[in-house]
């Protein structure tokens, strides 16, 4: 049952990523050139709705439908180094590959097979982070 629920949410997410064109390399390029409002509109409207949803869930202490526990949204750990440095690396890769981790899966399903190179290298990048974690400033 749970598998079906999460699989369905994933399908909805995949369709949204493809149809919004957020999974298109061209849209990411265009966004970084400030030549269209499209991507900013997507992120901005997702954020506006997301902020209202998050506020309401917290305000009314809504319970999860699956386990009945009150939904808790964890705060991120404090600090700035890991967020800034990690963010920069992510941005470099985002501009090159035009793919963030969600759309990668969508792109694969849509049949652009070379995205496998991106997925495998992203997994390897995560592995290298795990190796170096203790040596990096956080």
């Amino acid at each position, binding site marked *: 049952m749970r598998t079906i629920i999460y699989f369905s949410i994933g399908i909805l997410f995949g369709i949204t990523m493809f149809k919004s064109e*957020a999974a298109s390399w061209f849209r990411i390029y265009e966004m970084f050139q400030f030549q269209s409002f499209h991507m900013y509109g997507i992120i901005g409207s*997702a954020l506006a709705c997301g902020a209202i949803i998050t506020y309401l869930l917290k305000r009314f202490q809504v319970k999860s439908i699956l386990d009945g526990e009150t939904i808790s949204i964890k705060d991120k750990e404090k600090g700035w180094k890991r967020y800034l440095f990690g963010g920069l690396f992510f941005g470099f890769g*985002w501009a090159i590959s035009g793919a963030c981790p*969600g759309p990668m899966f*969508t792109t694969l399903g849509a049949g*652009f097979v070379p995205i496998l190179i991106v997925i495998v*290298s992203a997994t390897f990048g995560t592995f290298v982070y795990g190796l170096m974690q203790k040596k990096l400033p956080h």
Partner: protein
Amino acid sequence: MIEFLMQPWPWYFSGPMIALVMFLLLWTGKTFGMSSNLRTLCAVSGLGKNISFFEFDWKAQRWNLTVAAGAVVGGFIAAHFLSTSSAVDISLETVSQLQQMGIADAGAAYMPEKLYGLSAFTNTKSILVLSLGGFLVGFGARYAGGCTSGHAISGLSNFQLPSLIAVIGFFAGGLLVNHFLLKFLL
């Protein structure tokens, strides 16, 4: 309705749909964050053996791998059954800019053939560029503790300062590469 869904979705429909996905995951007791799956993949594949960062109960993360598997199927459905054209209607300015850089299919395709067509597998430069991009995305996402979904959507929706710093990093890094480096990579 069907006709509307068959067209590329406008931003004011896409954004709320992403928020809906986030809501569904929160409502079922989880969080919206896709890059965590890459860490899980490291653990599942055995790549992360004997490294403390990958020693966690990955079975507890199966739900998120299921979401990712759904995203693959969603991409397939959207591309094959919910689209009449695969062309992405980017601005004319972007089209001419990219054409000058040798991306001939700008404005006429969903992805540049040069990077994401099957011929990319036989083009050393394309393989290197995709590998570099992927590596940085994976490394950076884990270093920053999240990606576009975890920080830009979930974190900013919850007014988290760390997420704002991460998103500033995403855009600063992206702008630098897009404006100064990308032309040498294509």
